[in-house]
């Protein structure tokens, strides 16, 4: 039985027994290579669920939609390892109760879909551990290395050209499971910290703030990068930040649901070479 079928069967069982009130998974998209988020709450819709290598989107953000989990019922969700890490962070930041989340874990290696064993988030710690170990060695993108080698001026020009395209549609924010604030800093106007205008200066501010707020929280699922309608390589900034917290504080976001947020904790012997 394929994983898709296995998961459909499992979804049917969970829904019919009332163990979960909803399954958030993937369905067919508008073209053959697209998959779209699908919300299933009755057993006869289960066959619409699709699971294959085109299921890329991290669906964990939907779990924090207003009111979804407030009735304390369980919700099942299809997640890749990054999504599972996102659940850990959301739980660690008290945005949801991990007990309410039933995980349909999967990973895609090449084009092959592999099931990840487990139901609750703590059962996936081995998977996450092995990703952490692999993280520093993971081959970095060429563009990333190119940027790292640039002089600050060149880097500035690179990002200036990229950010000049930003239209402040906030697709990056809305697509991100970690951007759950009811009122984002750009939406606060007393004081107006970030210019809402999408001129390049305002875009610099927005993108810096976004990246900073995600430092040590980003799981690099790539939702923001794919969502960006003007193709700003946001993944590079996120990756740089993840690399930084891993190197400086040995922090790999989303290890467990009790992991302390990196910027809300400290060690007395944290590095401070740059402080005079």
């Amino acid at each position, binding site marked *: 039985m394929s994983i898709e079928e296995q998961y459909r069967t499992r979804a049917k069982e969970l829904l019919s027994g009332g163990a979960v009130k909803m399954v958030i998974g993937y369905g067919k998209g508008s073209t053959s290579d697209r998959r779209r988020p699908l919300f299933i709450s009755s057993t006869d819709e289960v066959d619409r669920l699709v699971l294959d290598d085109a299921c890329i989107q991290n669906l964990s953000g939907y779990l924090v939609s207003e009111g979804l989990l407030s009735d304390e019922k369980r919700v099942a969700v299809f997640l890749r390892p990054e999504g599972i890490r996102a659940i850990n962070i959301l739980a660690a930041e008290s945005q949801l109760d991990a007990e309410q989340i039933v995980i349909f874990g999967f990973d895609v290696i090449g084009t092959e879909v592999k099931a990840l064993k487990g139901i609750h988030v703590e059962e996936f710690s081995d998977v996450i551990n092995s990703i952490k170990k692999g993280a520093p060695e993971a081959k970095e993108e060429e563009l990333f290395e190119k940027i790292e080698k640039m002089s*600050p*001026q060149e880097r500035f020009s690179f990002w200036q050209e990229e950010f000049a395209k930003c239209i402040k549609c906030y697709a990056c924010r809305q697509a991100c499971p970690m951007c759950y604030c009811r009122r984002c800093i750009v939406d606060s106007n007393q004081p107006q910290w970030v210019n809402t205008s999408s001129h390049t200066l*305002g875009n610099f501010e927005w993108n810096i703030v976004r990246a900073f707020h995600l430092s*040590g929280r980003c799981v690099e699922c790539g939702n923001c990068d794919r969502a960006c309608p003007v193709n700003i390589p946001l993944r590079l900034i996120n990756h*740089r930040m993840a690399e*930084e917290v891993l190197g400086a504080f040995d922090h790999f976001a989303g290890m467990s649901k009790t992991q302390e947020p990196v*910027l809300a904790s400290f060690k007395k012997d944290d590095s401070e070479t*740059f402080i*005079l």
Partner: protein
Amino acid sequence: MPMSETFEPEIIAFVCTYCTYAGADLAGTSRLKYAPNVRIIRLPCTGRISPMFILKALQKGADGVLISGCHPGDCHFTHGNYHARRRWMVFRALLDFIGIPPERVKYSWISAAEGVKFAEFINSVTEDIRKLGPFEQYSQLIEQTQAPASL
């Protein structure tokens, strides 16, 4: 602007009131001379210094930003400066990656007793930023915000 001797950088300093601000006070009462380029903004703790402040200072045209507070272990609120230290670490890396030279944002620990260190720190930072010259990349962005849409 060419990098000439006439360039006087504008520097914004965010300091904690318990240590560095008291240190600045000491520098003043001890009649120590230091560069007049720095505008000091006093905050209750380095933990209160949001990276937004640094960005805002640059957005408003500062050539450099200076941040200072109590030495580790000396925080009036016991560990505000430890939290701040982590934040700076990450923020510095971010600025660097975006191409904002980290040399434009300087950090230090200055206690209430270190009036001399304060004066020296201000002088050295002012000198460094003066050498770097005006933050033209950013002022160019600021100017853009004043200009009409291009097409």
